[in-house]
Structure formats: structure tokens, C-alpha cells
């Protein structure tokens, strides 16, 4: 009996030691790929940065929610290669942690960026470097960064890469960009009310809404959605940290289309 206890104690000690010496270097694996192996100057291409995150840990979406920091990429490209639009993000998850709500991404996280090449620039190859930085959290948080790079050949022919299918899948499932010129929002002491008067033609019901603009809503309070025939009304609680009513509100809208398929779009509503 005594021996067993001693053994158990030793095992516990060893476990405790292993825990305190935990190595966080392998929590997130970073890789880079493109949809092309070779391109013609003047055409567009995509670069994917993939973060492979250890189970139970998460990184943050562009609006991180109550705590955390958005995952960030600083691109280094040759002259004549330019970004088209911003990073394409996957739809986030609400992650609850001791009374807070964060907007995070877990598991295999893909960040997609479109680039274009300038016809007037002579390049014999294209080297793209991504300095990726992120905060990875579970019960504790660790800031990390890593640089990854790739080289694309330049030639007369366009050659797809083995990641072409993945890029197409990511583009198909990513939120679409949608204009909302008629939609409005109002912010009073307690509530943020949004009236979606513009809707994609295939929209049946709005199922969820995430604000991309930070510090506007209390993330811990529920989002109320009322789907009417001609408009969708959304109500959210105001954040205690709101400074003033913003000129515009950027949001991600999740919806079911008329065939019951999950879709999403991002839109900006002007304060009228």
C-alpha cells in the first residue's frame, strides 16, 4: 500500500513537472500555399496561410470579442505584386470563458489573401513572405509569431497547384461581400438596433449576426433576430465601452438560403 502511494506520489510529481515544463512551441503549426505554381504576369492568384491549432486552444477572429487579439499577417511582396481586398476569414465561433465571449477559430484555420500582378513590372519569380502573429489561448494566452514564405514561377502558362481545390472550397464557403445601402442602425443607451432592408435574393432566414466593428455591443448578451417578410430586425445590448455612435457598422450575417443551406455575407451599414 505504502509503495503504491509512493509510486502515485512520484507519478504525480513527474506529471506536475511535465505540466510546468509544457512546451508551447508546437501549439500552432503554420504553413503557406498558393492556388498556382506558375502564373503569367498580369493575372491574379491567392495565397493561403494555414494555422493548425492544438485541440482546445484557439486563435482570434478579426473582432476578437471580450479579450484576445486578432490574428495578423504582414505581407512582404515584390514590387508589382499587390493585395486585392482584405484577408478572407472563415466564420468564427463564440468561445465562452469565465463569463466572457470571444470570437475565435479552432482546429484548422485558413486565412486567404488575393493578389494581383502588374503587367508593367518584370519579374522572373514571385516570392511572397507572410509574417504571421497571433495570440493562442485556452485558460492562458501566449503571443506567438512565425514567418512563412513561398515562391511562384513566372511563365507563359498558368499552372494550377495541388492547393487549387482547397482555395476554391474556401472561397465558396467564405462570407460573400454584399451591399446594404437601404439598411439602417440606431444606438441608444441600452440597445443597438439594426434593420436589414437589403437581402441577398436567396436569403430565407437570418440565423446569426456577428459585429465586425469592435466595442459596440456587449458580447455576452444574446443577439435577438426577428425575420419579417420585408426586413430583418436585429437587437443587441450596448457595450459599456462605447465611445460614440460610429459612422458605419460592419457585420457578418449568417443565414439559411431557400434550400436550407448555410450561407453568410459581410456588409457595411452607414449611419444615416
Amino acid at each position: 500500500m505504502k509503495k503504491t502511494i509512493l509510486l502515485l506520489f512520484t507519478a504525480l510529481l513527474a506529471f506536475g513537472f511535465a505540466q510546468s515544463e509544457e512546451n508551447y512551441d508546437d501549439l500552432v503549426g503554420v504553413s503557406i500555399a498558393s492556388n498556382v505554381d506558375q502564373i503569367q504576369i498580369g493575372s491574379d492568384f491567392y495565397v493561403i496561410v494555414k494555422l493548425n491549432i492544438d485541440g482546445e486552444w484557439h486563435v482570434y477572429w478579426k473582432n476578437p470579442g471580450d479579450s484576445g487579439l486578432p490574428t495578423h499577417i504582414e505581407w512582404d511582396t515584390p514590387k508589382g505584386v499587390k493585395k486585392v481586398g482584405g484577408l478572407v476569414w472563415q466564420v468564427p465561433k463564440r468561445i465562452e470563458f469565465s463569463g466572457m465571449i470571444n470570437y475565435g477559430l479552432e482546429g484548422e484555420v485558413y486565412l486567404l489573401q488575393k493578389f494581383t500582378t502588374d503587367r508593367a513590372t518584370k519579374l522572373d519569380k514571385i516570392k511572397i513572405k507572410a509574417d504571421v502573429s497571433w495570440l493562442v489561448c485556452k485558460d492562458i494566452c501566449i503571443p506567438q509569431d512565425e514567418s512563412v514564405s513561398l515562391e511562384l514561377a513566372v511563365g507563359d502558362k498558368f499552372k494550377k497547384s495541388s492547393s487549387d481545390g482547397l482555395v476554391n472550397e474556401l472561397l465558396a464557403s467564405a462570407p460573400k461581400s454584399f451591399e446594404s445601402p437601404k439598411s439602417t442602425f440606431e444606438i441608444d443607451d441600452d440597445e443597438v438596433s439594426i434593420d436589414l432592408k437589403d437581402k441577398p435574393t436567396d436569403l430565407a432566414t437570418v440565423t446569426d449576426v456577428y459585429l465586425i466593428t469592435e466595442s459596440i455591443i456587449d458580447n455576452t448578451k444574446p443577439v435577438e433576430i426577428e425575420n419579417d417578410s420585408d426586413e430583418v430586425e436585429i437587437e443587441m445590448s450596448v457595450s459599456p465601452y462605447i465611445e460614440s455612435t460610429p459612422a458605419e457598422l460592419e457585420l457578418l450575417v449568417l443565414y439559411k438560403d431557400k434550400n436550407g443551406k448555410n450561407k453568410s455575407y459581410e456588409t457595411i451599414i452607414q449611419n444615416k
Partner: protein
Amino acid sequence: MKKLSLLVAAIFIAATAMMTAHDHVKLGKKAPNFTLKDKNGVEHELSDFAGKYVVLEWVNYDCPFVKKHYESGNMQDLQRKYTKKGVIWLAVCSSAEGKQGNFTKAELDKKHKDMKTAETAYLIDESGEVGHMYNAKVTPDMVVINPDQEVIYLGAIDNIKSADQADIEKADNLVADALDAAMNGKEVKVKTHKPYGCGVKYAK
């Protein structure tokens, strides 16, 4: 015995309910009063400091965002500068027992000596009661209270959200701005800004 535990449980639930019904912090309103013990076991009540400016700083020395402001010396500089001007600076730790940032007195004494901190007192809020009262979600989270005990600033230490020390000098320190304005009889321009940092390690 069972009945007694049931009674105790009922009282506990009632007490918790009363606690949650407590005042919550609101910008421009009276700061909710509280009493907490410091690392030496000495009690401090917020209302004792009426007539003075008070800064509350939610802290967890193992959080990368807190480290940013301590390893650079930024937080200690602020503490030193304003306590010299008569400001009461209360560091508050709401990390529950066994959670990140919850240190023993010996560990705290060493950290405070090594980092040359200059807070008026380091308060222990293991239950998280005061943290919840002040809606503290992250570390660092800052509250500035005027001599009338009204909340005049609530939120982030500065306006560049990062864990990078190099950003400190590029940022506007919103706590210093609020104190400088108010202590010179001017209006505080930025009264609130969403704080950035690690989640407070509350008891579940």
C-alpha cells in the same frame, strides 16, 4: 446534518444572489464601494479614499499584455508619477485560487521588489466579487475615480491593442490623459475605450 447543509447552501445562494444584485460600475456614476484585503492582510475600503483620485488596475503578472506594461517599466512609471501627486493606485488581482496570476505573499513581495512597482496597495479579490462589480473582463483593465468617487475613465490603458512593448510610445495613454485633464480642471476627452488583454482568471 443534511438539513443544516441545505440551510447553509440556501443562505449561500441567497448571499450570492445579493452579491450579484450589487451595483455595477457605470461611467460618470458613483464608483461601487468595496472592501478588500491587500497582500499583507490589511483591509482597504474604497470610500476611505474619498477626496482623492483613485486608479484601479486589474492585474495578472503572467498575462502577456500585463507583462508588456511591466517589463517595459510603463506601469511602474505611471504608478510612481501619479502616487507622487497624491493619487491612490490600487492594483487588484481577481485570479481565483489555483489560476494564473494568483500568487502567494512571498511571490508577490519578490515580484514587487524585482519589478520596482509603486502601487499604493495590491488587493486580493480571489472570489472575483469586485472584479465582476467593475465589469473587469481582461488584464490590464483600468478605472479612474475622481475625489467625489465618480468613475471618470473606464477601460484600456492605451489605444494600441497589442502585446508588443514597441507600441507603448506610439499609443496615447488614456489613464494618464484622464488624470492629467481631470487634475487640471479640464474635461476628460476619451472617457472610455475597450480594454485589451487576457481574460481575468475568475473562479468558474
